[in-house]
């Protein structure tokens, strides 16, 4: 009996190749987008992990200075007096490349003899490296260059390279090219030099940046209890927490977007599968009538779904592979742009993703096919044969579904209010809202059609009226397709609105934050010694109205590594958007040195609130500083705090600065002022001067680049939606063959029939598009207020605009109309006898 059933399935699909194609397309697209995103994601994540791991090695802790750097004698103290077995001195600084203006790459100075148990640079492995370690250690000015950079600069062993270090140009000799350690992984090492060379190049004899250690927990505890003066012990990775948390959140977001594609894909599968069952209701009825048991019918439909799933998932995996090739560069660039300064190449992703994709695709297909299969099995033989029963059930189903949406919404709200405050819960809530939206769609469609009928019925021609009423009357066929379309369009809308809101917020934040007209910045490793004389002279420069001064540094605080900006504001104040209550009080306390302002990201990630104290190590002992306010910060680097410059100088005994903000008088010549500033600071000063408008422009450029990947995913969702609606509506209209035949028989002109078909698909698109408006807005609100906040700690203004919503509506209607073109053309050419004989 099963063979008979399977043959019946096969015959059905052979006679309806469109049906087969559409079902396969739905699954393939969903799986493909999901797998593509996951592959790109994983590949990028691995590449960054490997890059970081290459420099980190198996370091467990770092001994870092409280001030700028460490006396190298501390290293002696650690390895001899404290007898730490694995300890490596490190010098790390960013240097410029003369042949590549604007590029700054890390220079890592190490003692190659101490690297064995910590890092595995290929260069230090016998038979693998391309450099001569003896020469690296004994010859001054020798370096090993990472392969990618060498290729770009045409550097080879024996050639020279001009570095820019602290404003000077220094020629170094390339001893070797450092490739990757293994062949399947492309992780770029930094520019490598012996520690002696690094000290000499950077002009810091006797000093090192830090000591990398590998300690057991008890060794770490013993060392932490009595660190050498001027140092603190930090756990490796702790200082990268800010980056890691951001990168993880970014990847979670991408995964969620990929899953969304699969959800939309699942709707399509459901719609095609249930439709395939509907079309065969006569056959199924006959089968039931001749004694096929419900169980046999059920398993027959599930086997059919499984075969479809296998084929379509396979295609989906191939599609995903192709997609990933394009996506991975985008993902890498995004993470690289914001979170890293170096460039990395993609790594080979985990093959498990394919397994995951195949499993998800198959599971989604089976779940989607379950209800149609149950319907097929459950119905009594007679009822199955009657179309009217079916439509009555569908209408009742629409009402039940709408009622089901309410508890779902309640669950979604409950997760947000009472669930764990993490990203997974947030996405859970988001998916619940989407599901509720999908459940509401059929009833909303019926309601919309009834309204159209009542309001416009008498102005419309008969073909249009038939189309309007036909939507409600064929809910069993149209309901799910409309819901799928609505979810897809809502996704497109939501993401679009979120990006728009974000960009608006960023733009206004930049305007508030950029208080000066010209910004002069120095690398924190090479600060400027700008005494009051220089500042006084700066004020004398024609066109200069005021000067603000900043010292940026990185410290190991009680809540991990944070970036400190000690700031003496100019006329326009601190430029902070206080988001934690009254701004005036907070800014006054900040100005008086009574505490620090902390970035929103820091507050969120470390669960801090105003009034909490941060402990910062300083040369004059630990400083306990209360948080007087939280400020908005869209920076993606370290967690940050701001304090008054005078407060900093009181405890850090450091009069150097790393940044100057220059206010210009109205009509001042910015270029002339810039030249004067450069003249004052001297030709040797390694500074970068940029205008506030330049910074703003650059920031928005980076933002747009950052969200390119999101835009691409949004586009992919739109494509899935488009193809989905195309396939579903095409199937529905093709199924109306008999109805069209009847209409033709009772005297409808071919043109009227075409109009009727087109109107109906257009109306379905309209219904989906309209449902997607509030649904998309709700989605955007969740993305802005919950997901972004939980991912990145950013708060922003939710500023919905009609642009993305209108585009979504147009997309829905456009896709629907396009889907109607072929059926309407077919309807207009229907041959009477054939059409009526069809069933």
């Amino acid at each position, binding site marked *: 009996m099963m063979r008979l059933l399977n043959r019946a399935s096969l015959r059905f699909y052979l006679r309806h190749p469109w049906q087969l194609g559409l079902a396969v397309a739905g699954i393939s697209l969903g799986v493909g987008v999901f797998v593509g995103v996951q592959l790109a994601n994983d590949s990028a994540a691995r590449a960054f992990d490997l890059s970081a791991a290459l420099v980190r090695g198996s370091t467990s802790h770092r001994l870092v200075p409280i001030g700028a750097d460490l006396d*190298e*004698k501390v290293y002696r103290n650690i*390895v001899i007096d404290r007898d730490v077995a694995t300890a490596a001195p490190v010098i790390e600084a960013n240097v410029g490349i003369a042949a590549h203006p604007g590029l700054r790459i890390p220079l890592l100075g190490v003692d190659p003899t*101490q690297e*064995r148990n910590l890092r595995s640079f290929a260069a230090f*492995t*016998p038979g693998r490296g391309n450099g001569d370690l003896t020469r690296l250690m004994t*010859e001054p000015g020798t370096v090993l260059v990472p392969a990618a950079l060498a290729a770009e600069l045409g550097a080879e062993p024996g050639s020279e390279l001009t570095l820019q270090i602290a404003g000077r140009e220094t020629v170094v000799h390339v001893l070797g090219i450092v490739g990757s350690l293994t062949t399947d992984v492309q992780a770029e090492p930094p520019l490598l030099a012996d520690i*002696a060379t690094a000290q*000499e190049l950077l002009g810091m004899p006797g000093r090192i940046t830090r000591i990398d250690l590998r300690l057991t927990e008890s060794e770490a505890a013993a060392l932490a209890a009595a660190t050498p003066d001027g140092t603190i012990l930090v756990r490796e990775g702790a200082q990268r927490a800010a980056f890691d948390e951001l990168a993880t959140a970014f990847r979670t977001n991408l995964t969620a977007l990929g899953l969304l594609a699969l959800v939309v894909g699942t709707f399509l599968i459901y719609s095609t599968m249930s439709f395939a069952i509907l079309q065969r209701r006569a056959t199924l009825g006959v089968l039931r009538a001749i004694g096929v048991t419900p169980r046999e019918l059920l398993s027959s439909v599930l086997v059919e779904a499984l075969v479809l799933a296998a084929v379509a998932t396979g295609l989906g995996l191939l599609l995903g592979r192709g997609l990933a090739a394009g996506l991975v560069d985008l993902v890498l660039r995004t993470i690289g742009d914001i979170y890293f300064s170096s460039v990395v190449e993609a790594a080979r992703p985990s093959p498990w993703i394919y397994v995951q994709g195949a499993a998800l695709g198959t599971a989604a297909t089976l779940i989607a096919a379950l209800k149609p299969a149950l319907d097929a099995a459950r119905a009594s033989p007679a009822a199955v044969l009657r179309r009217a029963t079916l439509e009555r059930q569908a209408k009742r189903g629409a009402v039940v579904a709408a009622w089901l949406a309410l508890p779902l919404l309640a669950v979604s709200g409950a997760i947000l209010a009472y669930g764990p405050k993490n990203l997974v819960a947030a996405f859970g809530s988001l998916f619940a809202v989407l599901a509720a939206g999908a459940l509401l769609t059929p009833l909303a469609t019926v309601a919309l059609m009834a309204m159209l009928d009542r309001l416009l019925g008498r102005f419309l021609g008969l073909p249009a009226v038939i189309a309007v009423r036909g939507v409600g009357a064929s809910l069993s066929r149209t309901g799910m397709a409309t819901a799928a379309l609505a979810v897809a369009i809502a996704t497109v809308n939501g993401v679009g609105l979120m990006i728009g809101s974000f960009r608006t917020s960023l733009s206004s934040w930049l305007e508030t934050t950029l208080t000066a007209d010209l910004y002069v910045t120095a690398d924190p490793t090479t600060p400027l010694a700008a005494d009051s004389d220089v500042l006084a002279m700066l004020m004398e420069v024609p066109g200069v109205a005021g000067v603000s001064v900043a010292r940026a540094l990185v410290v190991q605080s009680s809540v991990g590594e944070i970036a400190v900006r000690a700031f003496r504001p100019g006329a326009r104040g601190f430029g902070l958007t206080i988001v934690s209550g009254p701004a005036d009080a907070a800014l006054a306390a900040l100005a008086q040195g009574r505490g620090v302002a902390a970035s929103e990201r820091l507050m969120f990630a470390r669960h801090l609130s105003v009034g909490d104290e941060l402990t910062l190590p300083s040369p004059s002992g630990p400083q306990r500083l209360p948080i007087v306010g939280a400020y908005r910060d869209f920076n993606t680097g370290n967690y940050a705090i701001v304090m008054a410059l005078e407060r900093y100088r009181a405890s850090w005994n450091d009069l150097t600065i790393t940044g100057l903000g220059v206010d210009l008088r109205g009509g001042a010549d910015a270029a002339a002022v810039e030249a004067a500033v450069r003249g004052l600071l001297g030709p040797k000063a390694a500074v970068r001067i940029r205008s506030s408008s330049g910074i703003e422009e650059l920031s928005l450029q980076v933002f747009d680049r950052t969200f390119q990947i999101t835009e691409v995913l949004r586009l992919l969702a739109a494509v899935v939606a488009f193809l989905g609606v195309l396939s579903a509506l095409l199937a529905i209209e093709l199924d109306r063959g008999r109805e069209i035949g009847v209409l033709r028989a009772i005297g409808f002109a071919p043109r009227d029939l075409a109009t009727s078909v087109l109107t109906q698909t257009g109306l379905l698109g309209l219904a989906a598009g309209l449902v997607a408006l509030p649904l998309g807005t709700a989605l955007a609100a969740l993305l802005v207020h919950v997901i972004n906040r939980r991912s990145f700690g950013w708060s922003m203004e939710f500023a919905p605009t009609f642009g993305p919503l209108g585009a979504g509506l147009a997309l829905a209607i456009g896709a629907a109309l396009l889907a109607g073109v072929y059926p309407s053309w077919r309807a207009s050419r229907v041959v009477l006898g054939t059409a009526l004989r069809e069933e």
Partner: protein
Amino acid sequence: MRLLLMFSALVLAACSREPASEDKQLPRASIGLRYLRAKDDAGFARAEEPRALAFPVDHGSHPWFRTEWWYFTGNLKSTDGDRYGFELTFFRVGLRPPEVDAPGQSAWRRDQIWMAHLAVTDATQQRFVARERIARDALDLAGAAAAPARVWVKGWSAARGDESAQERWRLSAGDGDVGLQLNLTTDDAPVPNGEAGLDRKGPEPGNASYYYSLPRLATTGVLKIDGREVAVEGNAWMDREWSTSALADDVAGWDWFGLRLSDGGSLMFYRLRRRDGTADAFSGGMRVDGAGRRRRLTRDDVELTPIAYWASPVSGTRYPIAWQLKIPSEQLALELRPYVPNQELSLSVRYWEGAVSGSGTKRDGGAMTADGYLELAGY
């Protein structure tokens, strides 16, 4: 002989972690040897003719030679009679001949790299633990001093007590759950190996080392293994060698024996092993009898036959860890077995060096026993 030649490989090998997969079939030492053979020794002194060894001055460093080591091994017993072995060695390799005016201003710009190995063997518990320290001679992290002689690598050291003729050494090293604090003394004078201390390793002039031994140093102190501290006493062997030497292309490695015999004398013999498995003509050694009479041994004076093997689960290398040793001219026959099969040091340089003991017969048919150390390199 010992690790002298192989040690130059340190310059590269010490800095590395496990070689990547494609190098796995090659032992680390071979990689080093390949590198060593191509090495330019220009500017370094070479051991070309015998010279009078002067003590205690020659206990100090000879930086004009590329490589040098201070090698202490010993066979000890606890008061309960449990047998232990230890190895503490200090290796020096010159990156270049010493320069009066070092270029650059960095204190790290130095000429020498130092490596030290510490290993403790516990025969009763069948345990063996080996650790390593490496440093360059910057910031006094490692180095050698004369008058009185002292060598150290980070916190590990071997120091001579004073300038007197009596040899008194203090060894101190530790790493977590393993370590030693030992005092070594003897009234014997150092035994020059080879031709009055010049030990030839190949046909080329200068392909030789200066080499002397102190085979029997009375030793007391404390060993630590697996966190247990044990009071021990017994005898230790000190080996000293320096050279700017290269290894002949067809020599794959060596088997070195340093034994104290029950006649009160000692036996040092190294077999240079050629790639085809035969002993190289420059194999040799020194026999000191109970009365202190010395006799140089050449390749054909000693017959060596492996009688048991052990394969390392770490490296997969198969080592001949038990031997039959015969000196036909003395009618001496010994069967030597290790305290513990696994005495492989899997450090920057991988080799097997372990405590052994043996028994057999001598000329008059009486019994002869021995203890000492065996080194297997290039496997």
